[in-house]
């Protein structure tokens, strides 16, 4: 009788073993990555790491250090990644203050503000060496050159960050009829007293039954001081730039015509300057 059973029991055994092996290796004891780099974190944790880099930058104004921290991620365009993260944060109802920190770093990443270099003081230390190099220093000569990834800039460099709280005046207001722009956009540009684009400026838009809040600098490719808002036809909007600026009223999607007589909705371009 036993001879008639064939060799199916071997296949049964392999299937049982395979099931156990997969269960153990994929769920019970999966691969864990130790000594990981921030680029190995999940996207959400990478966002958190970038946010901390932005908050640290806001506190110390050390752009070189912030750039070194972001270069760890091997992003093609770190400024764009930061801007996108700020947008996602606002869209998901996150803290506007956090989004503003991200937007500020996004704007400054490729457009650093003029730096004011203070004379060195005796209390300042030399540039810290990266950990990899530091570990080698027990046997290596002092001439080892730090790799750019973890090279921090010395604290002697201070930056003159903009005063976001100063009020803004409307400098330019014009209707934009451009068939190439398919949406009816409210385009805002904020500049400081010297005419330099200013990121991280709060823009508040209100209409009859709603409001929205966002910040300049989320599109660093356009300009660090740029922001826009998509208007709906037949709704009138009011807008204020900054926390104590002038309120601009009567903004709406303007009817425009192209060269062939077809009508489309245009937008507005508003330029604000800081007093």
């Amino acid at each position: 009788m036993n001879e008639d059973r064939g060799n199916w029991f071997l296949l049964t055994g392999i299937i049982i073993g395979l099931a156990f092996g997969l269960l153990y290796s994929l769920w019970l004891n999966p691969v864990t990555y130790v000594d990981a780099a921030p680029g190995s974190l999940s996207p959400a944790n990478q966002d958190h790491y970038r946010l901390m880099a932005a908050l640290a930058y806001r506190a110390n104004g050390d752009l070189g250090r912030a750039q070194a921290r972001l270069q760890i991620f091997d992003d093609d365009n770190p400024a764009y990644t930061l801007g996108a993260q700020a947008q996602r944060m606002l869209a998901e109802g996150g803290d506007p203050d956090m989004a503003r920190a991200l937007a500020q770093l996004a704007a400054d990443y490729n457009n650093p503000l003029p730096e004011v270099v203070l004379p060195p003081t005796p209390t300042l230390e030399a540039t810290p060496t990266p950990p990899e190099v530091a570990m080698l220093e027990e046997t290596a000569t002092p001439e080892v050159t730090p790799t750019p990834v973890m090279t921090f800039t010395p604290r002697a460099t201070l930056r003159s960050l903009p005063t976001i709280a100063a009020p803004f005046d409307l400098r330019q207001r014009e209707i934009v009829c451009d068939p190439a722009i398919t949406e009816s956009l409210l385009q805002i540009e904020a500049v400081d007293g010297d005419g330099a684009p200013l990121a991280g400026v709060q823009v508040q838009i209100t209409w009859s039954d709603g409001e929205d809040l966002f910040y300049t600098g989320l599109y660093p490719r356009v300009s660090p001081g740029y922001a826009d808002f998509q208007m709906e036809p037949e709704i009138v909007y009011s807008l204020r730039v900054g926390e104590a600026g002038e309120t601009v009223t009567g903004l709406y999607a303007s009817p425009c015509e192209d060269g062939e007589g077809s009508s489309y909705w245009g937008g507005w371009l508003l330029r604000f300057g800081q007093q």
Partner: protein
Amino acid sequence: MPSRRLTYFILAIIVGAVIGLAFGWFVRPAPVRSASPQYLRADYQTDYVLMVAEAYAGEGNVANAAERLHFLGNEQVNVYVRQAILYAGQHNYSQVDIETMNALSMALGNWIPQPDEGAK
């Protein structure tokens, strides 16, 4: 004969288990982008703590700092700060950075968590 079949059956299970383990650990392991922050390399953990300390120096909010340090794991938050200070001291971080982390460590030492504190 039955004992021989049993032996082959057990061998088949072992072969199947080895194939399953190899698949899960080597052929198709968990995605690389799934590392937990607690497994960050020591230098990156130290730099993270330094970022938290720098942000704390600007904001002065110890509850936020404690919440941010929980990113690194479930230990008491000051453990991470002390580890970072130790690492920084051993690897020639600047005195300014070490003092920044020391200030955070002292603030955490004096901090008593409140139920409604810390959310960011």
